[in-house]
Structure formats: C-alpha cells, structure tokens
C-alpha cells in the first residue's frame, strides 16, 4: 500500500513527557524492528505505559520526534490508529456487551467489510464458539485477555502494542498467549509488549529496559546481560541467607539477590568482588560456585544503579 518498506516499525528519538512537573518519560529513544517481538521492561511507574500511549497517539510528547510504521507520531496519529492494535493494561472492551457484540463493534469502527463474518471468524479462532453471547464482563481474566487480543488483531494491524497483557493471568493462559504472539510474529506482525515477568522477557527477540523514564538497556537478552558487565557467584548452604546482611555494605558487591536457598552475589569489578568475598570463602556453612548472571540479575542491577542516580 502506501507504506514504504521500513526496517524499523517503531523509531523514536528523545521522547519526553511530564505530568504535573514530573518527568515520566525522559529523553527516550528506541527502535523496534519489523517482524520482531520487542519486550519492554521496567519497574512499576517507569514510564512504559506512557511511552506506549505516545506511540499510538493517545498522548502527545512534550518533545521528541519519531515514526510508527513510517508515520509521524506527532502529525499522523489518525493513520497510525488504523494500523496499530493497542491492548490496554486494564480490560477496556465493553463489559456489558457480549463477546460477539464487542468484536462486531471493533470490526465496524475499523470499517471492515462484513463485520458479522469477521467477528464470527475471530470467535472461532479464539475458541469461543458457543459462548459468543456471553457478556465480556462475565469472562475470567484469561479469557478476557484472549478476547482483548482477538479484538486487537481483528482489523489486521501491522503492529501490536501490548501493555502488560499477562498481568493477573494464570501460567497456562500465559503460555498459550505467548505461543499466539509468536505465531503472529511468524506471520510478519511486529509486537511491542511490556511485562514484569523475566520468563516473558526471555521469550522476546529483543528487550528494552526502562526505569524512571530513562532507557537503560536495549538489545537481545544476551546483549543486555553482557552489557551490565556483572560477575556472579552463587552461594548455597545453611549460612547463605545470613550472608546477605553481612555483605550488605561490602565494597565490590554491587548486587545480591536470594534465589530459593541460594544467594546470587555479583559485582562489576571482578577483583574488588573477589576481595570482598574472600573472608567468607572458607566458611563451612557456605558453598561458593561461579555463576553466569541471569537476566534478573541484570535487571536488579540496572534498577539499583538507576535508583542511585536518582537519590
């Protein structure tokens, strides 16, 4: 159609947005490649939702420029709306309309030919045949989420923006959801999905990590982990839990996180880390093992470092 072949479906530079004097998104630049699943990670209130809303024209950036599907996010948001499927964090279809009525509404608003037929196809695809007269508000969390996704992809968008789509959904439904996302990406759809879950982040082709409105890391999972430059030890044994308090203020220890009965101890400076842990290496109730940093280690470190910057 009118679209020029674009490599990046999202390409934004220096986006800034403030609410009441507080910068929620601060000088954010990021890009998402076509046909890729791009994870968008960060703690609560870090500006993920605000960024997604700016991408689909629901919020106007204070400054910054960029394109979404090759269309200017500042001046062409009407055309962006037609080709982007946005799934809100909170279920935002009509609870007092039935599944079929909701889908038909979406089909009509997007001006699809044969809205009834399209809605019927979507119901079949969602596995909701026979329940189409049920009110959307009566569905369980998992089914609501499936319906919302179904409504999102009904107008055949080129880009999906999913804002914490799996929050409050059980593991089975989460897995099904991600299989569906991967299937869609396989068909050429690009996806930007925000999440808190590490396992979901690892299912993404690429991730972007944002905290306090600033983009802190971007790339593949391995790139992000490598980018933090962490050296990690895994400590297990009876004394592992007490160790966290003992090492709390030790020079060279940048990050600690308990994982079950063991403790991850990590630092960016390998020598300093070795010096810090040396006194504890020989304790009988501790077993020390060199580990590889996980994505979670990387995120906790990123989050802590950004906190330091803001204090």
């Amino acid at each position, binding site marked *: 159609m009118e679209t020029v072949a674009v490599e990046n479906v999202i390409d934004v530079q220096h986006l800034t947005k403030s609410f009441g004097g507080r910068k929620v998104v601060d000088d954010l630049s990021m890009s998402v490649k076509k046909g890729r699943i791009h994870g968008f990670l960060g703690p609560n209130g870090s500006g993920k939702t605000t960024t997604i809303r700016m991408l689909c024209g629901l919020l*106007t950036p204070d400054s910054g420029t960029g394109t979404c599907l090759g269309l200017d996010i500042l001046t062409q948001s009407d055309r962006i709306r037609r080709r982007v499927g946005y799934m*809100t964090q909170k279920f935002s279809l009509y609870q*007092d309309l039935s599944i079929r009525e909701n889908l038909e509404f979406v089909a009509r608003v997007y001006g699809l030919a044969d809205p009834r037929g399209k809605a019927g196809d979507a119901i079949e695809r969602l596995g909701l045949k026979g329940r189409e007269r049920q009110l959307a508000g009566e569905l369980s969390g998992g089914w609501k989420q499936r319906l919302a996704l179904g409504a999102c992809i009904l107008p055949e968008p080129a880009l999906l923006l999913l804002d914490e789509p799996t929050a409050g959904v059980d593991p089975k439904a989460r897995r099904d959801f991600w299989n569906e996302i991967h299937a869609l990406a396989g068909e050429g759809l690009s996806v930007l999905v925000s999440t808190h879950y590490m396992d979901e982040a690892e299912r993404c082709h690429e991730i972007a990590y944002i905290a306090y409105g600033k983009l802190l890391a971007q790339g593949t999972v391995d790139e992000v982990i490598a980018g933090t430059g962490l050296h990690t030890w895994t400590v297990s044994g009876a004394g592992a839990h007490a160790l966290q308090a003992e090492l709390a203020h030790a020079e060279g220890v940048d990050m600690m996180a308990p994982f079950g009965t063991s403790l991850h101890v990590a630092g960016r400076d390998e020598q300093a880390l070795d010096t810090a842990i040396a006194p504890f290496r020989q304790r009988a109730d501790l077993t020390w093992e060199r580990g590889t940093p996980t994505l979670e280690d990387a995120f906790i470190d990123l989050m802590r470092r950004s906190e330091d910057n803001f204090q």
Partner: protein
Amino acid sequence: MTIGNGSSFSVARFWAMTVKEFIQMTRDRVTLATMIMIPVMQLLLFGFAINTTPHNLPTAVLMRESSDVGRSILAALENTDFFEIRSVVTRSEDMDALLQSGEVLFVVEIPEGFERALRRGDTPSLLIAADATDPVASGSALGALSGVIQSALANDRQIEFTEPNPPLFEIVQHRRYNPAGLSTLNIVPGLLGTILTMTLLIFTALAVTREVERGTMENLLSMPITPLEIMFGKIAPYVIIGLIQALIIIGAGLFVFGVPVLGDPLSLVVVTLLFVVANLSIGYTFSTVASNQLQAVQMAMMFFLPNILLSGFMFPFAGMPHWAQWIGEALPLTHYIRVVRAIMLKGANMGDLTHDTLALCFLTLVAMLIAVRRFRRTLD
C-alpha cells in the same frame, strides 16, 4: 483513503457507535425502565397535583353587615365544592391575619350596605381577597365565584330581577402576592418540556464520563473513530427514547387531562425532535467537560434549575426582569414551551414560530460545537 488527519465523517463508524450505545442502553434494564417510568410518574404526580379543579379551598367571609343577602351568599359558598368556610369574621384585621397565616386562601368581603345597594340596583362591589401564591388554585376559584354568588341570589329570590342581563353586583378581585397567575392548561405542555429536559440531559451527561470511568475510553480513543462520530453515535439512540417519552406525555395529556393538540401534529413532532436533540447535545457537552459521572450529573442539575425557573414554566416569562428574560432566551426549554403551548393550545404551527424554532437550532449547534471542540482525543 483520506489523506492527512482523516477526520471525514464515516457513516459506518457512526453506525457502529449507535448500535453499541443502543445495545448498552437496552442491557441496562433499570435505566431503561426509569426512562419510560419517569415521564409517566412525573406527569401523573404533577398533573394531578397541579391540574385538577381545586376544591375545599379554605375560605373566610368578612361580614360588614348582617343581612339576608349575606347569609345566602354564605350558604351558597358552602354548598359548592370549591370553598370551605372556615370562619366568619367582622373586622378587616382578622381577615388580614387569616390570609397572612395561610389559614385561608380566600376572604369574601360583604361590605356595609351591600343588600340595600343591591335592592336599589346600584351594582355594589363584593370584595374578594385571594392568596394568589398558588395561582392555579386561586385563579379557577375566582372564576367560579361570580357564577356561584349570582345564582345563589337568584335562586333564593331575595332580589327581584327585572332584567337578568346586567350584572347585579361587581366583583372586585385582589390577587395578592402574585398579580399574574397561570392558566391550568399551560401545565401539561410545560411539563412535556420539563420532563424531557430533566431526563435527556442526564442520559447524555453520563455518556462520555461513563466510558472514562469504566476504562473503555482508552480503547475507544486508540481506534480510528472521530469525535463527531462518537457524539452522533451516542446521541442517536436517545433521540428515539426522547420521542417515545414525548409521545407518552402528549398521549397522557390528551387522554388523562384532556389537553388538546389543536395545531399541526407534524409541527409538534418536528419541534420536539429539535428540542430532544438540543438537550441531548447540551448534556453531551457537560459530559465532555466533567471529569466523572457525579460531576456530570451535578452540571446537568445546575442547568436544569434555571430551565425550570426562567423558562416560563413556573412563572410567567413576561413578569420577569429583563436580565432574567435574557437568560431565559438562552435556554431551550423557554423556546420549546412557547412553541408547544402555541401548537397545542392555540392551534399554531411551526411557521408561526420561526423565531423559537431557529433559536432551538442555534442552541443545538452551539452545544455541539463546544462538545466536539472539548472532546479530548488524547489522554493528556
């Protein structure tokens, strides 16, 4: 495909919105029942309370002379349904006190020398003092009084008549507290407008804020639908409801209260349609200004009050000061009441009332313009 902001009006999207709103409206059974019940209930309550012929009105008689004529007037008054004689006094201070305290609504004063003057054929004055704070009640009772007294005197044969035609006496009325007074027939047409205003304003006042509060607005805004399509889509289903309400009220007026439609029924429908749309668009405007449903309802109520007071529904429009008349002119109810009273009672049609019809169009346009401009397409 449209280039640029793509804000051209799409009938398909408008229709999508209308269908959605209509389904939501029918799904909320309580609200739907309320929509139909409010006009019926209001009309019956208002109609019967205000519109019935008054009877047993508390009355006092001030007897300045003790005469046969006086006594037979007293008896005649007691025999009618209209009046109930509460006391007979002889001093005018007592009369004032009774009226002031609200103990009686009427005082019939038989002046000194009334009988003698009557027998002489002098056409003496019979003074009626009425508490006209309730003008409907006092108005029709005053009208009845003259006939009652005249026939009382004739039946009792107290006075010999040579010619029945010239009046035997003159009734001097003092309508206290409210010199104008309203006609009973005005009530139903006035109620038609008032009930429509009250219910329709609130329907659309909730339209946008409800979407915001339920969290569906974010989804709606992320779709390619324009503010104009949303507005028309949200107004359309309630136009039907408004017309049904109007039909119920006019029907009840006709069959229960005997208020005729003397003028052109088509004109009545067209003007009612216009008035319904005007109120719905004003309510919708509130919806785009308010940040939640409660605020929207409060705004609708704020707007409703001057509509009731300054439109000529409760008080005669001509009796208001100029500034109040100017405010009244800016209210759709003022124009609608004028048009409807003229069509229903005076047999006028729309063509006779171009000014008020155009005023309704103008108010609708202004409200819609504000609403579309106020509607935020972003969540900023």
